């Protein structure tokens, strides 16, 4: 009796499994023509999350046969997660990427699709880009990513505080220090800074290096294959010393606060200056309004680098080499990087598109137009330092600088650690 019962249950169960299989099969058959793409980006926060949701919906309406599944994780977690999911057997088809070494890493390991032919094929679309923005996605002459946005780093200042104290926009490094001194005496925090998440350090280092060290030396040193470049130029130590000259003018305990905190300090008028990304104008301008001003990092007396340079780089979109639908994926990328989307994107999420002519009076403030000119007019653009060199060199730099800010290390000691990391990285090539 009991056995019969068990047999009955088992047969019912297995029947239902078979039934389940067949029903799911039939449903896929009816949706056979629909292609599903997985899109992975780094903005689970507003307003960009909504912007992408809207864009995806719009795209799906235009292309009824393509369905897009979006996933998003924030910044630092994205850096970690994207490496893991790309290594898995089921990576996202379309994914976001920073440029430079970050993107090259995917290209070198064969995880990202070579897009050169697509770019060449559709010249009408690809000629619209600021062509220099392709460079940081190009490895050995092949294009692996499409620039989506572009950005640069500059000093932001509070015009109200500057006027109150009768200060001029600093033209040289010593002007900046003198102004900071006056601001400090007036009871404000001169420069807002937060290095708990240490990538903020790398932006200072990158900009200072390019002011202190000759360009050809930098090119040699940053190149991971060039064993000659060993970061031994004295300009690197001087760059760190220059950075430490700012330290007395930062807010207290920079190692324990985040970049977001320093931005709030600046926004609320407690700090007079901050070193921010041009895309952050959109976040700060609504609060400070006409009191917000921007100036490029001032030239340093005795620096051997190019004073008319800017740190900045595009961020872009790549396609996985394992995707089954490269054509459809490319279609989606083209949609996101179209001129119309570029104009929308600045107005809605204040990211400068890498497409020419997307910044105009209608969608950008005067300051934003000025800012984009900073990028266009710079003689030399350098990548974000943390994406320009190998991650192990970055790590040595960031750890060392945190300790230097804490008074535990001197610039010479930091550079010694960096040179050791450089040796390790380059000897492993």
């Amino acid at each position, binding site marked *: 009796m009991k056995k019969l019962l068990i047999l009955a249950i088992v047969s019912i169960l297995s029947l239902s499994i078979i039934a389940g299989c067949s029903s799911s099969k039939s449903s896929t058959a009816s949706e056979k023509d629909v292609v599903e793409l997985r899109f992975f980006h780094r903005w689970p926060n507003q307003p960009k999350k909504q912007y992408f949701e809207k864009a995806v919906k719009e795209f799906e309406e235009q292309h009824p046969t393509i369905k897009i599944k979006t996933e998003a994780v924030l910044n630092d977690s994205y850096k970690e997660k994207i*490496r893991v999911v790309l290594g898995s057997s089921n990576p996202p088809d379309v994914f976001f990427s920073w440029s430079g070494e970050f993107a090259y890493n995917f290209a070198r390991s064969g*995880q990202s699709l070579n897009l050169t032919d697509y770019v060449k094929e559709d010249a009408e679309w690809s000629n619209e880009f600021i062509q220099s923005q392709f460079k940081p996605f190009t490895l050995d002459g092949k294009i692996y990513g499409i620039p989506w946005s572009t950005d640069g780093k500059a000093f932001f200042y509070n015009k109200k505080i500057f006027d109150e104290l009768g200060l001029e926009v600093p033209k040289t490094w010593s002007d900046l220090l003198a102004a900071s001194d006056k601001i400090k005496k007036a009871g404000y925090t001169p420069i807002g800074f937060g*290095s*708990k998440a240490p990538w903020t350090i790398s932006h200072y280092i990158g900009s200072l290096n390019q002011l202190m060290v000759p360009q050809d030396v930098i090119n040699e040193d940053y190149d991971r294959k060039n064993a000659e470049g060993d970061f031994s130029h004295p300009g690197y130590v001087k760059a760190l010393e220059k950075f430490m000259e700012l330290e007395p003018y930062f807010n*207290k305990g*920079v*190692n324990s*606060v985040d970049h977001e905190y320093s931005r709030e*300090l600046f926004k609320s008028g407690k700090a007079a200056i901050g070193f921010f990304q041009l895309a952050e104008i959109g976040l700060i301008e609504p609060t400070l309004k006409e009191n917000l001003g921007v100036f490029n990092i001032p030239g340093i007396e005795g620096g051997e680098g190019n004073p008319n340079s800017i740190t900045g780089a595009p961020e872009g979109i790549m396609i996985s080499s394992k995707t089954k639908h490269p054509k459809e994926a490319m279609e989606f990328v083209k949609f996101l990087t179209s001129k119309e989307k570029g104009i929308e994107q600045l107005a809605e999420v204040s990211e400068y598109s890498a497409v020419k002519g997307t910044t105009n009076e209608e969608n950008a403030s005067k300051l934003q137009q000025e800012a984009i000119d900073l990028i266009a007019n710079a003689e030399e653009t350098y990548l974000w330092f943390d994406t320009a060199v190998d991650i192990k060199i970055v790590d040595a730099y960031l750890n060392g600088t945190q300790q230097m800010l804490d008074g*535990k290390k001197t610039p010479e000691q930091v550079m010694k650690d960096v040179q050791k990391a450089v040796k390790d990285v380059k000897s492993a090539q």
Partner: protein
Amino acid sequence: MLHTKKWLPYLYIAPCILFMLLFVYYPIVENLRFSFYEFSAFSPEKTYIGFENFLNLFKDEVFYIALKNNIWYAVISILCQVMGGLILAAILEDPITRLVSSMFRTIFFIPVVISITVIALLFTFIYNPDIGILNGFLSLIGMEEHARAWLGESETAIFAVIAVSQWQSIGYIMMLFIVSIQNIPRELYEAAEMDGAGRIRKFLSVTVTQVREMFFVASLITLTGAFTVFNEPYILTGGGPGNASEVLGTLLYNSAFFKDQMGYASAVATVILVLSLIFSLIQLRLFKSGEDG
């Protein structure tokens, strides 16, 4: 009936064993294997390098900073949580505090049920050098010279992190001790009273000796917790400034997902496993648990 089907009990525990094998033991063995290779998250091939990961690890000064911080974590946690938790439990179980004990029990236990992420973010505000209430409080009572960037200075960072864990977990250990104190037969206390024992004598001679078994459990929990800690330092300091507040957990994470040295990270994981195994074995021996009780 039973002895005719000897295999039946094994059938019942089979799912559990299967899951344990699949999700606990298999990863442990794989991890051990990985620690002899050098590879990155998306490199298709792994290079066998023998014990080099371990050799590099033992040469890495960050490893010793992390180990030292873990030991600090363990020592302070045992002192604060286990000793402190026991004392708290004894006070709350004393007849004198009967009226307020349930309220305090809840108050002390609330941090345990709050997510660690929330707590860590909360404490970043408390520790904030400009607007934090800790520095505000210090200047209020005239100790302004002691105000500092708690999480941003090498000397204080790890202790500021440890303090958060104590605040959070003491309630849990206290609860364990309360349960075990409630199981002590009342007669023992009555007998001690008749012998003329005071409160402290009763605590030392009756309570402490009777909760020995729970003492073992509580210290095992805090000790293994101290060696596998990750969330608190990761959210509060990220291991910084420099590597000052790095623990083995964050060292593992940074090597694996920041520097992309998966083999090296596996070696760290193996070391953590071995360390916590050794500590539990020592404790098992020390307390001879399970033999009485």
